[in-house]
């Protein structure tokens, strides 16, 4: 086996290791996950019930409820990705394993991408359960829904979310105490400007400009069109997501490298907690 082939093989095994570890941890924390799922469903219901209170005709109420549900599900999905990415460093620092991971011959891209890959898989499962649980509870009808297109767009958007997530995962490296919270600030800001429960056009113009560079804008727009009106994948939603993914991943990695170097210069990889 050539050196390149051996190295590629080893990196793929390492990527599998990251996913496998998260599977072990998810199994161990199953009851906690279940409780979190119930909390997320309850939280989503509080949002979707707003449609019932709007006193609209049944068809329009159903549309509004679906629009709100899509927003809440994307919020939950993005929350999982950001949590996993931002906590990549924080969890390992807490457990004390961070130094072992950072001294291992695993490329940082593979390390972070492995974490992102698990987050996407886990997030997709949770988002699917959340969508159908709340839709069943409220009695939402989506006869025209094109779930395949909605799912595909979410998968494409995941690449962009991982790229942005890599950028936020550096925060706990720079600030062990406040970094994780800053990651959640980024998640909140991204959704606010992306029209999570309202159209982007109702925001001030400067926020609409920021919305253009947020991947959440395109996935919210595209998934609503697919689920409410049954549209297929729209190239107008796909190409911005692909461009953001292509730019965000190397940029995120470069940002992470700068943060890692800073942490190594100042001894911030050390265990805390």
């Amino acid at each position, binding site marked *: 086996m050539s*050196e390149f082939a*051996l190295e590629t*093989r*080893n990196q793929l*095994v*390492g990527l*599998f*290791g*990251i996913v*496998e*570890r998260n599977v*072990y*941890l998810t199994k*161990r*924390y199953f009851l906690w996950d279940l409780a979190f799922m119930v909390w997320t469903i309850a939280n989503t219901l509080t949002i979707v019930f707003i449609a019932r209170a709007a006193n609209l005709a049944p068809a329009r109420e159903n549309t509004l409820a679906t629009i709100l549900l899509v927003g809440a599900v994307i919020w939950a999905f993005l929350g999982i990705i950001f949590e996993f990415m931002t906590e990549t460093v924080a969890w390992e620092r807490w*457990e*004390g*394993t961070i*130094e*072992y*991971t*950072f*001294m*291992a*011959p*695993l*490329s940082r891209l593979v390390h972070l991408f492995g974490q992102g890959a698990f987050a996407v898989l886990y997030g997709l499962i949770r988002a699917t359960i959340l969508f159908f649980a709340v839709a069943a509870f409220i009695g939402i009808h989506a006869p025209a829904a094109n779930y395949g297109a909605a799912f595909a767009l979410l998968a494409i958007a995941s690449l962009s979310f991982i790229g942005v997530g890599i950028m936020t995962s550096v925060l706990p490296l720079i600030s*062990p*105490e406040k970094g994780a919270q800053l990651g959640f600030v980024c998640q909140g800001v991204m959704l606010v400007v992306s029209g999570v429960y309202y159209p982007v056009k109702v925001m001030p113009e400067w926020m609409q400009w920021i919305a253009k560079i947020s991947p959440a804008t395109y996935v919210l727009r595209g998934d609503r069109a697919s689920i409410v009106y049954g549209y297929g994948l729209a190239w107008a939603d796909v190409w911005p997501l692909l461009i953001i993914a292509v730019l965000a991943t190397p940029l995120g990695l470069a940002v992470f490298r700068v943060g890692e*170097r800073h942490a*190594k*210069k*100042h*001894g*911030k*990889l*050390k*265990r*805390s907690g």
Partner: protein
Amino acid sequence: MSSLAASTTDFASCLDRQVPAVEVRDLRKTFNRKDRKAGRFARKRAWPALADVTCTIARGECVAILGQNGSGKSTLVRLLSTLLIGDGGEARVFGHDVNREASTIRRLVNRVSVEASFFKKMSAAENLSYAARFYGMTPRQTRVAVPEILAKVGFPPERRGESMEHLSRGMQQKVALARALLTSPALLLLDEPTTGLDPRSKLEVQEFIREVRAEHDATILLCTHDMGEAETLADRVGILDRGRLLFLEPVADVKRRFGVQTLEQAFLAATGREFENEQSDEDDEYREVFA
């Protein structure tokens, strides 16, 4: 274990037998930390963790670095394992520069630290498999290698599936040793591997280190404040005092040089201070990590 090394990484391209395992020249590292006694808003001041440390460790040698808490031992280990970037000087592992060739060094080095750090909810077997994946070991390989290495460190087979949080400190430290050896490192960095262990566990771990040396072509850097441990395990002993390496010689030469019977007396002769009266490690915790 040697078969594992062959299956995971081709070390031949990384190792030159003529090159020393470790070469350190004028290595410096300074941390900024707050003086707690000066109050909450006190300015940080520079604290030299390593000051112009120079030493060489030959391939296959076991070298012990003695020093009290805060003397710079862990900083040296972290620099050699690419977890810290030095402020000056040079450090090479098997001829590879720790800053410029970090990825090559990471395939050659593993470490056991004073805290046996694991995912506490995961079992010993799961933690070892996870660590092994980073070194290219597949599930098929670890299914054989993990029970094998755990048996070697005397870990009870019936407890392999138990969460780490339910294991005693001694057991956890054995798993930590197993983790380091699972990847067949050419350089093993042991940072206080027996600190806090009961006497029996301590002897077992020391015996295992001897076995590793005898059976495995590994170079060992042992950082400890246990002088007896250093004397029994190491070919040469050095004292690191407040970031300065005072000497690095065979124990007999150290005793002869200072005209003393024990290493404690040698420390007193070299520094003018009692070994036990050094500062607490708590000070070390107040580096920028918590800033």
